[in-house]
């Protein structure tokens, strides 16, 4: 009985989660640290108190020094020391006078969120732009 009910319910849930045909889709994927590296081109925005990942951090600093990546970090006052290497490597780090909870990065047109051991990468129309617009308005009030 239970199985009979569960299968249609699951199907219905999946169907509901599908976007209506014709609309541009948002894509989400869980990536390893190494899979992130190709996204690090152009400009990287980091928003939050810290952004984990030894390989990720090392690559960011290398590309920053090499001039192939621009980095802006918006963080809290207490996390300026954490991001000091970024600043030394030529990135711009500013402290936001308000409060930031959580941490995200925007790079290569995608939104990157650290989740456990991996990273959730979300891309699609408006996703990166939406976060970037919030970043920019807060950036104006950061020092």
């Amino acid at each position: 009985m239970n199985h009979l009910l569960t299968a249609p319910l699951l199907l219905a849930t999946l169907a509901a989660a599908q976007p209506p045909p014709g609309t541009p889709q948002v894509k989400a994927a869980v990536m390893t640290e190494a899979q992130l590296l190709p996204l690090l081109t152009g400009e990287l925005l980091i928003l939050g108190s810290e952004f984990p990942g030894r390989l990720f951090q090392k690559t960011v600093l290398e590309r920053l020094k090499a001039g192939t990546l621009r980095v802006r970090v918006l963080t809290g006052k207490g996390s300026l020391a954490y991001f000091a290497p970024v600043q030394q490597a030529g990135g711009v780090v500013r402290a936001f006078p308000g409060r930031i909870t959580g941490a995200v990065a925007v790079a290569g047109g995608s939104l990157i969120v650290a989740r456990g051991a991996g990273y959730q990468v979300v891309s699609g129309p408006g996703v990166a732009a939406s976060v970037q617009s919030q970043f920019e308005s807060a950036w104006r009030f950061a020092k």
Partner: protein
Amino acid sequence: MRALTALTLACCVACAGAQNIPGLTTVPGLPTLPALPGVRDVWGGSTPTLPTLPVLPPMPSLQNVDPSLLTGTRNDPPPTYTRRNVFSFPDERLGVLARGKWPILEVINVEQQAEWQKNAAACRQQQQGKTPAGGTVSCPQYEWTVPLSLESESKDAATGIRRAWQRFEDRYWWRAQTNLNNTSMVPVHCWLGLGMGALDTSPATVRTTVDRSDVPEVLASRIPTSTPENNLHLDSYWPLPQVPPGDFCDGLHWKVNLMYLPGGCTYIFGVRTFCLQGNDTVTGPGVAPIYFNMGEAQDRVFDAMQHAATMYYPQYQADALAEMLPPRRRGLFMLPWNSHLPGQGAMVAPVMNQDVSLTQFTDLAQRAGDALGDVYRPTSPLYYFQSVKRLPALDVFSLPGRKDLLGSPPGVWKFEEFKRTLGPSNPAYYDLFGYATWFQTWNQLDAAILPEPLSARPLRTLTFFAGAIDHYVDFSGVHEVPVPTGVLVPPYHLPFLNYRVHYTWTSVPEGYDIPRVSGTPAFDYGPVVR
């Protein structure tokens, strides 16, 4: 009476001079008083009749009084009475009520009376236009006439005084809140006029109060004392103005400058991933704006506070005064004693009603007898009802060794002081029982955080209505959802520090000091009532 020249009080207030009310550039003066209306005009066309005492309650007989009490072993010296302002009933005026005229009281300034009597012979000569042998002497006026007013009118005046305060409080709040949220609220409240429509003021309750300082210290624990409960606040608090838009929108310009940038949270597939917000204290579902122009917000609030102090406060004082005077009050004859200004006494009026019930007098006899005990217990009803039947048992208070009657104002002072607990009655009973109830109003310095009822504070916290924008990312794209957030703006609640008009009813035994008044009355109703 009607033909009598109208009298003006304004000069009396002007000469009272001295202490002004802060925030008032011009003190509201007392307007011209018309001649007194006839009693019938105010009493709904009927001619009132004076009541006579109905069947008396049963009195204890002398046999019930313990003879040892009657011999009086206790010595009850009265406290030192410093009488300043007292009143008395001129007997011949009581009957005039039935002829459609107002009964009166005579009020006396004891000090000035003493001065006049010191020079009595010379003063009489001066009155006749002669110069006394010893030269001109000081003969101050010491007696003034005041008509009895209607209790119902004093109740209306008290309600009006509350309404005047309520109007001020609502105007003050809505000015501040509307100016703070100028961009969104000026169109809604000032242009559209969205509001409750009117103040809903419940009628004041007539209740006599006895201040602790009104009675001698030795009786303070026996006479129940009370303080005036004016409840100077709105009867109910609403999220909409109760006063009309014109009351708080005057001179309010619409401003559209940038006040804030919305903060917000981003949810990715339903999980809150990050939030950006400012540090301001907020209320509501949204987070604080990432930028909020607190300086401008506070300026707007302070502008409104300034406006209320300079524009609305004087109007409050004028509103309150108008509630006590003609043309608003036709049967209330306030006596400024010596004025309505702070620290300068009170406005007073003895008030009467048509109540013929004796219950409060029999209750008084019981209450006073129980509280005083001793010889006072059996003699209490005999004392209070002595105008009906004078019983020899009361001679106990003039026995050798007793001092109840000596050195005090008229009567047995302990019994007399208990009359302060009586409520208003009709003029015949006032005369028989030797007291009168006075309606009093005065300005009192109050420091308050508005609104005073704590339960109303959440609705009256200075709040800038902002918005936050939350972003929801799911497979169909990015959705922006505006959510309301309220930024709390210091000082959060509106302060008030100034004089407020208070009122009470207070009963005074004939010949005993009238509380709260000071100096001499600014006005004599004598010429208009005689």
